[in-house]
């Protein structure tokens, strides 16, 4: 029973990280119809900037320095995200999907290599105090892991309100639904797109920093993270934020259950296997509406 509970806890933590990334990814996909493969690397930029800021104080990081670091990381990610939109996706608006896909991958690799050149290739973590885990029903969870769950829950609530209860959210939904129509209705599509990128990148930064807290970070992880986000999104239904979140938690569950059964060896490719299977069996995801692919003309 404790094993099951531990798996659940690990899945929730992993799922929270993935869902932060997946939610941002879906926001961008909804508005631009673009798979933003640099998203994970944007997250890593935020994480590394946070790390650098925290290192300014030296020694162990306190809640205060972490908060400052996080703030810096969020700003950095937002800047990078907006630049990517401006210089990559905007010039390619209307281009064939493959061209955009390759460009997105190129940007992702560019960010990754810049990180590697400036921050090095070693695995890093935030220098926080050793955590004494709380024991709940035979399973363990550290305060930091609890923080991850709490922060994610908070952010999703905020995201929900933003999308569904604000004027900006209405504009975002309009653009996601039909950009041409939204433009005709007077909605500043370019500005809304920029805001969406900024918000998504902020979420990504949080995901990156949280990952640096509970696991570790490494420049190559950006691509891994975005592929997992993509797997979550495909699993939950392309274009649906709740679907992306559910998909992310499901992915976390699959990973941890799979890791337990195979003693960790096959944990890494599970996300890709899930992605592969979903693409082959039901590309519209578990929750998504049919993409209309059967209507071929």
């Amino acid at each position, binding site marked *: 029973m404790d094993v099951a509970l531990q798996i659940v806890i690990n899945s929730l933590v992993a799922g929270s990280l993935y869902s932060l990334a997946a939610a941002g990814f879906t926001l961008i996909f909804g508005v631009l119809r673009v798979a933003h493969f640099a998203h994970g690397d944007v997250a890593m930029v935020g994480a590394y900037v946070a790390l650098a800021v925290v290192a300014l104080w030296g020694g162990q990081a306190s809640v205060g320095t972490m908060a400052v670091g996080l703030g810096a990381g969020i700003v950095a990610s937002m800047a990078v995200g907006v630049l990517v939109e401006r210089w990559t996706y905007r010039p390619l608006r209307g281009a064939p999907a493959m061209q955009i896909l390759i460009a997105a991958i190129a940007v992702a690799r560019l960010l990754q290599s810049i990180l590697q050149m400036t921050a090095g290739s070693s695995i890093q973590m935030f220098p926080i105090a050793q955590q004494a885990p709380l024991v709940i029903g035979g399973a363990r969870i550290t305060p930091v892991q609890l923080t991850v769950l709490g922060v994610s829950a908070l952010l999703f609530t905020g995201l929900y309100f933003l999308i569904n209860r604000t004027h900006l959210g209405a504009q975002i939904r309009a653009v996601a639904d039909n950009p041409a129509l939204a433009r005709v209705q007077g909605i500043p599509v370019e500005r809304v797109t920029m805001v969406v990128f900024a918000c998504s990148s902020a979420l990504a930064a949080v995901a990156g920093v949280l990952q640096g807290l509970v696991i570790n970070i490494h420049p190559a992880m950006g691509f891994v993270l975005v592929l997992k986000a993509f797997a979550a999104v495909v699993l939950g239904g392309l274009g649906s934020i709740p679907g992306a979140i559910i998909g992310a938690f499901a992915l976390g569950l699959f990973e941890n259950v799979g890791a337990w059964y195979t003693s960790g060896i096959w944990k890494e490719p599970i996300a890709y296997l899930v992605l592969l299977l979903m693409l082959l069996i039901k590309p519209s995801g578990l929750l998504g509406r049919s993409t209309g692919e*059967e*209507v*071929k*003309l």
Partner: protein
Amino acid sequence: MTEGGRPLLEVDQVKKAFGGLQALQGVSFTVPRGAIFGLIGPNGSGKSTLFNIISGFYKADGGRVLLEGRPIHGLAPDVVARLGLVRTFQLARPMKSLTVYENLLLAARRQPGETPWGALFLPQSRWTPPAAAARAEELLALTGLDRVRHQSTAQLSFGQQKLLALAAAVMVEPVILLLDEPMAGVNPTLARRLRETILTLREQGLTFLIVEHDMEFIMGISDYICVLDHGVKIAEGTPVEVQQNQQVIDAYLGRAEIG
């Protein structure tokens, strides 16, 4: 309706819905061999949907389509084409990286050069069967595209593209040709050429099912007409009969023609 023997194409109670919208509510008609059969109806009547179902690009929700007695509903579009039912598209769709002549040869059947083995191990002279090259020549002459045979299809006028599409479709050796609004957007000279080509091909034994909005053209060329409105067949018969049908007049012909 049938002139001795089995009709060439039978459409039997075909149904199709998109989400909540019922596009076709059980449409049936038959096309006799050697006929020119017109399919008309206002926009949204389900003509294109029906076309796509017959040619294998959509799957029907119910009903059957029989070609020479053989069920073809549910088969892939390329299979349907090879069985003898070939369609054109409203927007011509030429292959941009090919010339006119290459576009015709592309459509030829049973080319030894179209397998990797044949491409690699047969000499270039054996890649295309002489009969195919000869047929291409005939069609180039028939459509008047002879003069532009080495031009890239991207450089053709819209009407020329439609002539090319028709010729390419014929290269596939069909028994029936489905033409999707062949006259749309074509200037009068080329329209006349298209009309003549269709009639010549019919003399050569081809059957036609044509969707059109150009009333003068379709009433003038068809042996039979079927009228659709909101996914339902509201009339069927010779052009004269259909033009005198009150329901058709109310639904379609009476109103100003919507493009």
